Structure formats: structure tokens, C-alpha cells
């Protein structure tokens, strides 16, 4: 059994960690947090130069052609650094949708641009409240144009193109949904930025009015493609969440070692030690589930849907748990804007909702386990 990343992959992780420590310190994250930039353009360029944006994109489309395990280790480091760039929208959602369903021309049009850092992509799925479900989609596609509103769209304010889920039928079934590719810089699109929990990652409302769009994948196949995209993204986001959880745990541990109260290190009090031990437990469970998700993703295994849901649940819980208790360990200082704790707290809670909420994925896991048990 070799249920671990290879030495090369671990080396890539170290390389990414070093790169991000240098190019993406908390100071850089705060430029975006404080609204002085929409995202970190320099970092985005650097990620492209390092080959990180196209690590899982085949060489024929301008990528490094490595694979999803390599993308997982980079994702972990992106989460650890709290990177203020549209990495998940572009790489896990838009690029994966193109890889799964794009025509050769579509792939040629967008994937090399993604790998080069020249195109930001996103998935426009949600329409207000609720979780991913065909019935929640009202935006229509007819005669090659889209009409409707998507909200919230992660990184929608800075994206060059979007994969849009649209209604093309009214049977009430999954095959009512089709996917479209939209050049957001062309006409028929109005983008409004929205304030959100995590200002280091923008959210937008996008209004489509007779907006020209080309189909992505076959008509009526949209929901099935989306499900695959969300499963892949769930695993990749889980790695970001694991990276963030580990960083929050480290911050709490370090503070507990430095801070003196009642004449001793606060990390010597069991109330604090046990809180940190429980954070370690959550983070470890999340990491192990995420490794399983990585294996399923990289081998395109039949177990992917179940593995992705377990990884998503476990990593969401771990990041939320570690981020909130990191603030608790810090006490009053943890509640200041000046300390970095709240950046992880914001990211953890925003990430918990991005691909569908925890309860959505809990539902998915039970459905998928039942399906497996029935088989």
C-alpha cells in the first residue's frame, strides 16, 4: 500500500509553499482584504510562471500535463497561504468543466490562456439562495442567447469567461439543464460586485440579457457534467481547506506557546491544550479523507462521488473548527482586524458554502453510500 503522495509531489508541495511564503505573505493578502485590489495580479502572474495554473492541464493545451495529485498538493498550499486569487474558480471549476465537456476548439481557446494566467474563468451556477439543484435554475438559454441572473458568482467581477448552467427544458428533470460558455467581455453581460464574508475572494451578480453563448457539452447533459465538476472541485477545495485548517492550528499552537497569563504559557492549561488537540483531530480526519478523494480523483475511480462528499464534509468541518478556535486561543487579540485569525475564519466560512453547503454534501454522501450499499 502506498497511500501517500510521491516524493516528487511532496517536493512540488515544498516548492509551492516556499513560493507562496515569499509572494503571498499576510501583508499581500491584506491588500485585497482592504479593498485596494480586486485580486493579487502579481501573484497570479507568478503562479502562471511557476506552471501551477496549468499543472493538471494537458501539454497539448498549454499546461504542464502533470495530473490531479500534483494539483492537490498545490491546492493545499493555496489554502495555507489564504491566497487572494481566483484559483479555485478558474482551475477547479472552469478548467475542469472544459476538460470534461469542452470541444477541441473550446479547449484550445481557453485552456492555454488559463495556464498562461491570461484568462480567469468561473462557474456561474447559483441563482440566489439554495443549494445545487436543477429546480433552482431559472436562467434560460434559447436560440443561442442567455437571459437571467446568476448570484453569487465567485470571482465573477474579475472573470474573463464563465461556464453558465442554464435551463433548456421544462420537464422537471435533470436533463432540462445545459451548460454554456460565455465570454464575459462581450455584450449582454452586466456584472455587479457584491460584498461578502471573505473580501479576499470576490463575489458578483451577473445579469445576462440576450447574451450570446456557445454550448459546452451536449444539450441536456449539463447537470451530469456539473455533478462531475462539483465532485472534482470538492476534492480540490478540500485540500485548500486542509491547508487552511493546518495553518489556523499552527497559529493557535504558536500563540499558546508565546502568550503568558497567570504566570505561565497559556498552552500549559488543559482547557487550551485540549482545544488544540481537538483541532488536530479534525484536521487529521480531513487530511485522510482528502487523500482518499485525491486517489479517487486521480484514478477517475467509481468511488469518486462518495470519496468527494466525505472529503468535502470532513474538510469543511475541520477548517471551520480550526479557524474559530484559533480566534478563541488568541482571545481578544484574535478579534482584531490587525491579527490574521479573522482572514482564515472568513475564508473557512465562505468556502463552506461555495460548492453547496455542508448539509447539501451530507445529503449527497448518504445518497451515494446508499447507492453503493444497494449495488
Amino acid at each position: 500500500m502506498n497511500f501517500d503522495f510521491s516524493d516528487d509531489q511532496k517536493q512540488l508541495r515544498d516548492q509551492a509553499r516556499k513560493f507562496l511564503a515569499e509572494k503571498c505573505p499576510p501583508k499581500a493578502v491584506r491588500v485585497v482584504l482592504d479593498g485596494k485590489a480586486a485580486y493579487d495580479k502579481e501573484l497570479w502572474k507568478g503562479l502562471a510562471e511557476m506552471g501551477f495554473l496549468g499543472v493538471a492541464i494537458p501539454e497539448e493545451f498549454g499546461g504542464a500535463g502533470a495530473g490531479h495529485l500534483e494539483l492537490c498538493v498545490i491546492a493545499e498550499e493555496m489554502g495555507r497561504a489564504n491566497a487572494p486569487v481566483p484559483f479555485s474558480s478558474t482551475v477547479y471549476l472552469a478548467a475542469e468543466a472544459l476538460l470534461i465537456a469542452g470541444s477541441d476548439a473550446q479547449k484550445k481557446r481557453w485552456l492555454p490562456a488559463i495556464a498562461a494566467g491570461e484568462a480567469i474563468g468561473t462557474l456561474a451556477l447559483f441563482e440566489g439562495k439554495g443549494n445545487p439543484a436543477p429546480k433552482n435554475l431559472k436562467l434560460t438559454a434559447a436560440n443561442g442567447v442567455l437571459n437571467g441572473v446568476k448570484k453569487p458568482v465567485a470571482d465573477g467581477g474579475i472573470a474573463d469567461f464563465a461556464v453558465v448552467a442554464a435551463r433548456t427544458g421544462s420537464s422537471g428533470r435533470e436533463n432540462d439543464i445545459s451548460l454554456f460558455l460565455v465570454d464575459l467581455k462581450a455584450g449582454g453581460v452586466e456584472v455587479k460586485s457584491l460584498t461578502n464574508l471573505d473580501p479576499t475572494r470576490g463575489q458578483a451578480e451577473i445579469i445576462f440579457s440576450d447574451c450570446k453563448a456557445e454550448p459546452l457539452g451536449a444539450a441536456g447533459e449539463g447537470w451530469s457534467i456539473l455533478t462531475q465538476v462539483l465532485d472534482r472541485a470538492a476534492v480540490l477545495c478540500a485540500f485548500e481547506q486542509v491547508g487552511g485548517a493546518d495553518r489556523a492550528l499552527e497559529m493557535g499552537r504558536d500563540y499558546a506557546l508565546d502568550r503568558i497569563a497567570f504566570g505561565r504559557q497559556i498552552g500549559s492549561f488543559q482547557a487550551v491544550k485540549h482545544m488544540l488537540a481537538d483541532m488536530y483531530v479534525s484536521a487529521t480526519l480531513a487530511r485522510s479523507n482528502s487523500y482518499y478523494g485525491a486517489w479517487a480523483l486521480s484514478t477517475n475511480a467509481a468511488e469518486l462521488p462518495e470519496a468527494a462528499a466525505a472529503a468535502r464534509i470532513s474538510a469543511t468541518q475541520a477548517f471551520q473548527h480550526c479557524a474559530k478556535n484559533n480566534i478563541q486561543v488568541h482571545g481578544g487579540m484574535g478579534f482584531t482586524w490587525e491579527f490574521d485569525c479573522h482572514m482564515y475564519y472568513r475564508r473557512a466560512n465562505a468556502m463552506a458554502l461555495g460548492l453547496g453547503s455542508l448539509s447539501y454534501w451530507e445529503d449527497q454522501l448518504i445518497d451515494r453510500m446508499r447507492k453503493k450499499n444497494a449495488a
Partner: protein
Amino acid sequence: MNFDDTPQEAAFRETARKWIEANAPKELHAELSKSSLGRIRLAHHDIVDVGKAWQKKKFAGNWSCLHWPREYGGRGATPIERVIWQQEEGVYGKLTQPFQIGEGMCGPTVMAFGSEEAKRRYLPKLASGEEIWCQLFSEPSAGSDVAGLRTRAEKKGDDWVVNGQKIWTSGAHYSDYGLLIARTDPNVPKHKGLTMFFLDMKSPGVEVRPIKQANGMQEFNEVYFTDVVIPDSQRLGAVGEGWSVSLTTLMNERMSIGARLATGVPEMFEFCSNLMLEDGLAIDDPAVRSKLASWAAKSSGLKYTSYRTISALSKGERPGPENSIGKLVSGMMLQDIATYAMDLQGAAGVLTGNDEETVQGQFQQMLLSSPSMRIAGGTDEILRNIIAERVLGLPGDIRVDKDVPFNKIPTKGR
């Protein structure tokens, strides 16, 4: 990343599988498979009798105490081979329960500190199951704080005379030998006045009394010592070095890598899949699904954590600390699951008989037994301390009794 055996591992697995196929007591398979959650109930057999028979067969086939050297009754196997064996032994591994303390703790301590003569005399018989060992560490006033133990051993000529009481001793009533830690000097701080011995449990002055547990069962004992004589040749390690000897014992504690700890999740999933509530199946209820999914994700997290440990062993590396979370997570989960299952059963959940409404009371049993999972072998609190101190590097507790002579430490809270 893959789940495959290396060619050597695959060959070892094949050999083990064939031997088990040819030799295992298949007539017990169904019963052993059913007795989950750490409770073994055999209708027509005594667990010690059938356990001894299986152990003897394994010893003859060279499959007992795999990681021990051959000259002491083992196989000289690698850690990963031991894990593979446990995987293949499967439900028959439950038959090894009476021998686990001997194999995992007492044997390795004798191996590390015993004379060559003692090793050759005792270890092979321990490995063959002919002689069963127990571990005599905990005392009524020394649980988590085991170094606070009070059982006295006093030197009289070439012998030691022991007086005192041990508690929570699993298997003392059927054990032949015991590993005993006792206080030999009460005038020095508590960790410094301890010495390790082993003794014949049939020695005059040893009295074993079963403890009736909160769940109604009797698995542990109290052991009383009244002027029990132990020859100095049965001392393990130097006088006053008992604490460091005991750390060797505890470090060798059987790592539950191959055999997964019970979590209650498969039982709960099946229960919810079949239970009809007023609005339909329990598993279709959003509140039930949410809890069940969280538990399932924890359970799979434990499973893949153990796979990471096995992978490290397979590469010949020392496993990381991640496996230390197993008992902490599964103990609490068992208790939570049992409580929630009964909540779903409603009023009938109070029944503990062979009732159809409660699926023969399996969750009621789980509820009543689960507190011990959170205490035995290190309480939840001690495990959190271990994670905090050894994994995260946080400071140890401030120990007010560390430098105080043992006989000056207060014995009552008020």
C-alpha cells in the same frame, strides 16, 4: 498513490491467506462476525478455550507474535507483515483477545529487560497461548496518574514481599503470570521509587476478585496482594527504574492499525436504513442524514488515517502521530451514536431485552459499554494531553508533586 501490495507483501499475504483458509476454526466464523463493538459472545464456547486452541495452532504454524524474534516464539516479521496478517486473520483475530496484553505489553517488556533464561522460559509459552499474562499497573488511587501507585514491595533477603491492591486488571482471573509495578521506595519523588517485577499469579497471597461493571458485565478484576513473595530474579530492570521500564511497556501497547476500532457507523447506517418513522424511513429524514453523514465522514477519516500509517510502515518508515486519534474519535462516536439510535427508537428505546423494536438491544448495549471506551487504555483527557504535548509540542502540565517525596504527597482532596 495506490492501495496495492508490493510483490513481497502480496506473496506474504498469499501465504498467510492460504494458511488461514486451511486452519481457521470456520465453525466460529458466523458468531465472531456478528459480535461487533468489541463484545465477543459465543453461545457454546469459552473464549479462553477456543482462543487457546487458535493460538496454539498459530504457534505451531509459526504465525503467533509475528514481530517477535524466532528464538522467542515469533516469526521475525516486519511491521507491515504484522498488519497484513491482522487483515487476513480478520474476525478470527477476535480470538486473540486473551493474549493481546501478553503479546503487546508483557512480552516485549520481558524481552527488553528479562534475563536470557527468563526470555527462553516464558516468551515461547506466552506466544503459544499455553500461558496467559496480565498487566498489574492501575490502582484505586492511581489511574491516569499511574506513577502515584501505592502497592509496596519490600526487600527481604533475596526476595521481595508485596502488599497492596491493583484494579482494572483484564483477564487476571485466567492469567498465569502478571507484570507488576510496585513502590520500592516511598521516600523519593513518585516516579523514582518504582520497580518492575513479574510474578506467578498462583503465588500464595494473590487474590483475584471480579469487578461488576456499570454495564453489568465482568471483564476486569481487582487483585489483592498479601505478603506475596517474588524472587529477585523476577525483577525487570534496576531497582527504582520501574517507571522507565513501564514506558517501554506502554510504548509497545498494541497499535490498532490493522484491526479497526469499532465506531458504530455500519450498525447505525443499517439501523437507519430499515427504521420506519412516522414520515418514512429514518434515512430519508434530513436531521438523521446530517448526523449520519458526519459520523460516516469521521469513520472514513479514521479508516484512511490508518491507511496512511500502514503506508508509512510499508515504506519502512516510522508512522507519524496521526494514528493516536483513533480511540479518542471512536469512543466518543460510539456513545453519541448509541444515544441517538435510542432517541430514534423513542419510548421503546428504554428496553434492553431481545425486543424487535430495539434490534435486540444492540445500541442499548453500546450505550452502557461505551463509557469504558473513553476511559480504558488512556482516558479521552490523557489522549488529548498526549496529542497536545507530543504532537503539537505544547508544554506539559505543571506537576506540583514532581519533586516531593512520595510519602509527603497529600492523599485526600478535602
